[in-house]
Each structure stands twice: as C-alpha cells, then as structure tokens.
C-alpha cells in the first residue's frame, strides 16, 4: 500500500480529503507504529484519500508546553503551522489525543485553524455511514472489553461516546472500570511525565490504572492513545498478565474486524 505525502500529492496536483497527522509516537514507537499502520490500512480500505506530512511533520510541542517550556512549544507550533498552511490543509485526523488537543485547541489562536478529528470520531462516522463494514461474528464478538479514557480525549475534549460506540459495533461486551469517563484515571504519561522518572511515591500511576482494568476481568483493554497504550501495557506486564489480557488500540480492533 502506497502512503502519499502531501508533497507527493501536491506534485501530482491532487488534494487529499484529510491529512493524517501521525504524531511522534505513531511514527517512531514500535508499538504505536502498528496502530498507525492499522489506521492507515482502514483509510485505504474505505477508499478515503489521505496524505501524511512525512518528514515535514514535527512534534506539536505538547510535552514541551506542559513541562513549562513555552518557547519550544511556540517554535514547534510556528513551524508546523507554516507547513500546514503552506499546503492549505483544511481537515486533519490523528491517532494521538495529545496532538489532537494541541492542533484543535491550541493552534487556532496561533494562526492554524483546521477541522481536527480524533481517529475514534472518524471511525465512528465511517461505521455509521456504512463505509466500514464489520465481519459478522468478528474476533471481539461477545468478548469483554474495558475501555480506558485518555485524559486528552475525555476530560480535555469531552469525547467519551465515539470510542464506546465503536466497541459496541464490534458486538463486544463493554465493561467499565470504576473510574471511567469524566472520572477516568490518568495512565500517568501526560504532562511530559512520559519522558521522565516518577517523583517519589508508593506506586506507579500506570500500575494503579492497569490494576483497575484487570479487576474488570476483561480480556481486552481498549485504548485510543499511543501513550496510554504503552503505559497500560507496561502495567499489565508488571502484573504478569500479558498472556491473558491484550491492550489494543481501537483502530487495531477495527482493522482486525473489517470484512
């Protein structure tokens, strides 16, 4: 499958329907690359014309801004907005809630206004429109799945329903953790915590969250953020449950269940 960059599309005189903002985790992290590939495969299968920025994409600046380094954030934002505006981008979809939040909420006042979707919202739309056709009796039919709300999707942007509706479309049995939706517990990665050691404490946040997810007895933990995915996977491994419980991105679940 050929993934086009914006530069290639431009050169061919074409315009994509949507720009797929891959994000740093999705681009470089081996686990997250699988999510990226699954999502790209879905877009390809439904025939949606999309492009990536490729080597022209750069960190949105989310971790820098949240660590307190506003200068670095503004530099990254400036560069990215130059690139995006240069290509006349109108619509963006991303598999990372942090990129989603920054592009959607923080770039507009810096001169970068786009329609920004998180991939769970787009996937739900595609299911509703009948463009994504799911197998009868797919791999997740009747299976217990617990969905972990990403802070930057849930509380930060009020997206609670789209990921859940997708899981329902998979005929899965959705089991909620005690702390869910607006009360959801963070995985521990946000605010640039992903990139440093924990402060002194008595437990790691990702283990606290993984314990809660394991308590539901679900065989699958669904995530919609590459960072949450890493954190919860680590937590599950820490409890030596990685053979019984799989942590998957919603895009991966859809990709595995499409006709």
């Amino acid at each position: 499958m050929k993934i086009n960059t914006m530069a290639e599309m431009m050169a061919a005189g074409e315009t994509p329907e949507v720009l797929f903002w891959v994000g740093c985790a999705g681009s470089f992290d081996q686990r997250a690359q699988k999510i990226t590939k699954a999502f790209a495969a879905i877009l390809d299968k439904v025939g949606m014309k999309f492009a990536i920025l490729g080597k022209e994409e750069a960190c949105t600046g989310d971790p820098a801004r949240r660590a307190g380094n506003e200068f670095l954030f503004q530099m990254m934002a400036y560069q990215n907005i130059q690139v995006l505006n240069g290509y006349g981008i109108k619509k963006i979809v991303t598999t990372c809630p942090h990129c989603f939040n920054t592009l959607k909420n923080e770039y507009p006042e810096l001169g970068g206004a786009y329609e920004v979707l998180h991939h769970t919202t787009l996937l739900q739309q595609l299911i509703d429109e009948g463009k994504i056709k799911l197998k009868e009796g797919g791999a997740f039919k009747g299976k217990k799945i617990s969905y972990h709300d990403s802070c930057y999707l849930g509380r930060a942007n009020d997206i609670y329903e789209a990921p859940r509706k997708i899981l329902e479309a998979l005929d899965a049995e959705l089991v909620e953790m005690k702390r869910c939706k607006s009360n959801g517990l963070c995985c521990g990665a946000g605010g640039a915590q992903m990139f440093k050691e924990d402060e002194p404490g008595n437990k790691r946040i990702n283990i606290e969250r993984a314990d809660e997810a394991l308590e539901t007895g679900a065989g699958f933990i669904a995530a919609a953020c590459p960072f949450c995915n890493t954190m919860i996977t680590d937590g599950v491994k820490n409890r030596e449950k990685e053979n019984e419980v799989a942590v998957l991105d919603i895009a991966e679940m859809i990709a595995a269940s499409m006709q």
Partner: protein
Amino acid sequence: MHYIPQIGFLILAATGSFLFAKKTGEIRRNILLGKDEDLSNDPGKRWNNLILLALGQKKMFKNPLVAILHLVVYAGFIIINVEVLEIVLDGISGTHRLFLPVLGGVYTWLINFFEFLAATVILVCIIFLIRRNIIQLKRFISKDLNGWPRSDANYILLTEIVLMSLFLCMNAADQVLQGRGAEHYHTTGAFFFSDLLAPLFNGFSDGALVGIERTAWWLHIIGIFAFLNYLPYSKHLHIMLAFPNAYYARLEPQGKIKNMPAVQNEVRYAMQPELAPADAPPPARFGAKDIFDLSWKNLLDAYSCTECGRCTASCPANLTGKLLSPRKIMMATRDRLEDVGRNINLHKTFKDDGKSLLHNYISVEELRACTTCNACVEACPVSIAPLDIIMELRRSLIMEESNAPQEWNGTFSNIENNFAPWKFAPDERDKWAEEMAS
C-alpha cells in the same frame, strides 16, 4: 431604658456589617493583585454555569447522597436566614414577631417550615461531623488539613448546630410563654419541632423563660453576625465566592492551555525579523513565581476553595503517594495571598519579604508530579482550576530558572533538534509508510 436593647442591636448590626465590609474589601483588593484577564465573553454560558454549578451544585451530584445532605445544609441555612430579616426588623423597632399579625396563618406555616429545616440542618451537620471525625474519610484525614483547616471545618459545623439549636430553643420558650398568656408573647399556633422541646422548659418561671427566650434570641443574632465575620477567614467563604467563581470559570475545553502572547511574538520576531517592532518592550516575567504573576481568577479560585479535597482524591499523582495535592496548591496560594495582604495592611504597599509562592509555599517536587490530566479541575464543585496555577509555576521554573529534570532537558533538545521527544533520526519519521509500501 426601653430603648437600650434597640440601641444595643443597632450597634451590633453596624459593627458586624462594618467589619465584614472591611474584610471583604481587603479580599477584593488581594484578588485584584493578580494580573488582568478578560473573562467577560459569552455571558449566557456564564450565567448557565452559575445556575448549574453554583446554585444547582451540579458537580456535587457525582455522589448523590452527599449532594443531598449538602443541599439540605445549604438550602436550610439560606432559607432560614429569611427569619433573620424578621429578627433584624424586630431588633431595630423593638417589636416581637413583627410578621405575625401581617401573615397570620402563613406565619405559623413558615416558622414550622424553618423549624423543619433547622432540625434537618442539625441532623446533617452531625452526620458531617461523624464523617470527618469518626468515620475519617481519607480526604478529611489528609495531612493537608493538619492544624487550623481541620478545626475550621469542625467549627463551621458546630456553629451551625448551635445557631439552629438557639433558634429552636427560642421558639420553644416562646411557645411555653404563649401557653401561659405572658405579655408580648402573641399566640402563633403550634410549632412542631420546638413543641418537642417544650417539656424541657415547662418547669421554669415566666421570668426565667423570658430570660431564656431573649438570651436565645440575642445569641442567635450575635452568632449570625459573628459567623458572617468568620467567613472571610474560613474555608466557608465558598458559600459566597462559589457564585462569582462559577460565573468566571473558563469556558474553553479543559485541554487548552493558556497561550503566552509574549512568547508567541518573541518566536515570531525571531523567525520573521522584519515583523519585529523597533521598540518592542522586553517581555515581562515568564510564568508565575508569586501571586502577583497569577491571574485574578487564580486568586479568586484560592479564596473560593472549601478544602473538600475532591481534587486531591482524584489526582493520580496523589493517589500513588506523590507529594502533589491540588487542594494543597489552592490552600498554599490562599495562604500566600493572605500573607501578602497582611504585609500590605502593615506597610501600605507590598514590602518584599524575600518569599514567593514558588519554593516557599509550593515545592518543585509537587509541581513535577502533575500529569496535567485535569481530574482536579473536573472534580471541583466550585469551578476551581488548580492546573492553571501548576502550569504557571512550571513555566516560571523552566523559563526563569532553567530548572528542569535532566531527562526533560534531553526531551527538549530532542524536540528542538530531531522534532520528536525521542532521539530518533527525523528522516525515519515515515519509515512505517515505506514498510507498508513494500
């Protein structure tokens, strides 16, 4: 001689109101020490928030049972204060139960309703005292509350019980006196709750009963004025500030962090020097080191905090044993603000005391533990955003002090040089795409 109680009452009311107004003025002055921030847009949405969040206590209903108990105390306490109107008018004009002849049967019904509320307020305050002191819910035994804050919470509950009891005793003595046909004590019809207390008072002489009734009346109204003046020093100030705080709450998605136009322009001028004005003023301080650098809304937040600890109970860092407690962030901000206020009272303007909110009141370790998950913001029943303060202090740490953990410095340099927080070659950003093509 006849006018002495009235004069006494007027002095009490005037002193109570004056002191309250003075302290309120100081709090207003302190809040305005913060930086300007325009929060006047979209009044429709803001009124909606005020009605839902402050008046309707929407967030409290995340736990319906506690919400109903809290609503009883709140509504009871507010509605009973209608009775205070009569007390004040009686106090000024030297009358007794001024509204009785005007309202007739409605009066009996109203006082019965107030007595019902008083009884339920007493009951709920007892339940709340039990929750705090006997059941010891985690958020109430936290070390955040050691010392004055813990006593403050108990004083408030005890005061409410005392005030409500005085109201019931006053009515009970009044009822017995009415039964005996004592002068001035007009027949009001039966009051259910104070009638239950009447047997306690049957044995007293008329003189003693009048004494009890008057004492209860005076203590009740003195108590109310005293409580009014206690509010500004207490977490209980939230009964007033919850309203403006809900009105001025941020309307943007919680995930959006406040922009810094000064830095935005710095970067723009660096990239496009032709845009830089010749006389561009050097940017002021970055982020917040002290309360003067925070927005007035952050400071209003600090005064609105009722130290309930819902933020801290939902904070992932705190739950896993880290030092960070969003409640403590708010309490420390208020403490610093009060210290600055006292400093200003003493010296007319603020005299540098060598302290700052950052470091002296809030430590680096606390700030470093935050995941910016917004659980604290979401949990707060009175629309406080502890994350705003944490972010501003973090900005000061990084941009003023270059104070970052070693790993973060590495992350920053990766983002700057490799355009990703990890040390990967930027050329490999689309390697996954090449893999898909082959």
